């Protein structure tokens, strides 16, 4: 008996998101579902020690939450602004008649993810909503992880939820034929969450929420529910990048570029896991964006020294990426790969060709890449100019310090 509250704690951690996902479908409203979920856990704390633990706790919590939610709707039904919340004319099914098969409950998690990542919501709202609803973080936790004021974030979430309700964004997994169009939206949100955490892993961070871990947890769950090649590809990409985390900064917290990293610090177990995901992804066609990116990350991960990097293979992978998903950033990376593959002149020429693209002409990494190629070529004067341009456009302190160091090195070389 005395262990009951602890058991509920664990259940809350493991099942609250699942209970809530199903309640959102049943009650058709995010806020109502959250209240109902909380009510259900309160009821569990009160009733289980007396009546004993139910055989299927998740189903019990959903049924109880559904009861609480219906009661709420009845109580609110007079208020105008809640009028659209009213259930349709037919009577709601009784809690006992609900379909609570494990597969239905699993599908609800997927429905929730696709709803949170719906393209009609702004990208900021998608990220906030996904972290809040799918990862079960509090508003304060999400706000601190995204470096936002809790009030700003709360507003963003409220507006997104209202839009889902009032514009009737469907609570559904898109049908098979629409998946190729909709899945990238979900993968992009997960990858942005990952990058948000990854780019912020430097310095004395006080944030206790690890966004890279949350992104990988989401990816893992998605891979289980929707075993598609690109989901595997994204998992591979995240693991292969994250494996390099400790090597990305030195003991002073300064940035270390890929070629200068101490590769003994790369976490081999993550590399192996990433490559295993990649192999699963490559077995499924067509090979998509994340799978190709992960393939590039794998080439780096498998070179025990920077000089052993198979740049020829990287060039071929960028060729494939640029053909299928043309973008100026990919063209930039491809040009660098060509230069590193023993053709620096061609690489620099390709950089000049794309220099005026609006997405690149104000992009500090374009000038940093150009400067690096010039430096390797021994064109120190031109390299200095490019580093200066990069410095003017860079905003993050570690990046600025890195560019300053490179400039200083050039001053001291002939």
């Amino acid at each position, binding site marked *: 008996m005395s262990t009951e509250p602890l058991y509920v704690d664990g259940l809350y951690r493991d099942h609250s998101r699942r209970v809530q996902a199903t309640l959102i479908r049943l009650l058709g409203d995010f806020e109502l579902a959250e209240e109902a979920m909380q009510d259900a856990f309160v009821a569990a704390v009160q009733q289980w020690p007396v009546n004993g633990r139910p055989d299927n706790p998740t189903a019990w919590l959903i049924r109880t939450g559904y009861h609480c939610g219906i009661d709420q709707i009845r109580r609110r039904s007079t208020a105008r602004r809640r009028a659209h919340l009213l259930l349709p004319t037919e009577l709601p099914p009784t809690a006992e008649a609900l379909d609570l098969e494990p597969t239905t409950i699993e599908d609800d998690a997927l429905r929730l993810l696709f709803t949170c990542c719906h393209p009609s919501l702004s990208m900021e709202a998608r990220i906030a909503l996904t972290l809040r609803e799918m990862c079960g973080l509090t508003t304060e936790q999400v706000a601190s992880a995204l470096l936002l004021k809790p009030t700003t974030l709360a507003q963003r979430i409220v507006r997104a939820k209202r839009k889902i309700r*009032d514009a009737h964004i469907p609570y559904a997994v898109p049908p098979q034929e629409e998946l190729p169009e909709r899945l990238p939206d979900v993968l992009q949100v997960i990858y942005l969450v990952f990058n948000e955490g990854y780019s912020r892993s430097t310095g004395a961070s006080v944030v206790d929420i690890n966004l890279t871990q949350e992104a990988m947890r989401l990816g893992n769950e998605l891979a289980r529910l929707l075993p598609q090649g690109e989901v595997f590809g994204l998992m591979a990409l995240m693991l292969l990048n994250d494996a390099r985390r400790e090597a990305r900064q030195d003991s002073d917290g300064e940035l270390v570029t890929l070629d200068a990293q101490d590769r003994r610090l790369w976490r081999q177990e993550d590399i192996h896991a990433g490559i295993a995901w990649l192999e699963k992804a490559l077995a499924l066609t067509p090979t998509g964006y994340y799978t190709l990116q992960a393939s590039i990350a794998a080439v780096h991960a498998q070179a025990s020294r920077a000089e052993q990097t198979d740049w020829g293979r990287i060039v071929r992978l960028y060729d494939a990426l640029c053909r299928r998903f043309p973008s100026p950033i990919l063209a930039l990376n491809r040009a660098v790969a060509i230069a590193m593959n023993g053709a620096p002149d061609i690489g620099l020429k390709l950089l000049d060709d794309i220099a005026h693209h609006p997405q690149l002409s104000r992009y500090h990494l374009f000038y940093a890449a150009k400067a690096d190629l010039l430096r390797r070529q021994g064109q120190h004067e031109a390299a200095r100019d490019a580093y200066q341009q990069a410095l003017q456009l860079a905003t993050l302190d570690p990046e600025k310090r890195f560019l300053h160091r490179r400039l200083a090195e050039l001053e001291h070389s002939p």
Partner: protein
Amino acid sequence: MKYVALVYYQEQIINAMSEQAWQDLNQECIAGVERLSASGHYLAGQPLQPTETATTVRVRDGETLISDGPFAETKEQLAGFYLLEAHDLNEALQLASRIPPARLGSIEVRPVRELPPKAAPQTEIGE
């Protein structure tokens, strides 16, 4: 002649309204539609959910782009429309002046444009 009357107001003003004032406004609109229908001027119309429920669709290079909004910094937002039958613009403006939200925001009246006749299918020369 057909005219569309586009109803604009500041959503802020509506949000700040008391429950009773909002109910009254809705009832007034219902009565207005009944009056316009009885006189044969009302063809169709619909109030809209607030702009925060809006989604914009664009197709560029064959790709469908969906985005949140619009949240342009316009003073007044589109709140609904009426399709009216009127002899001329004068009559349409008169009808529009009796649409209740005209007191709160503005009504833009535009004559409808008929599309040109559907093009005949192209036939092969010499057929």
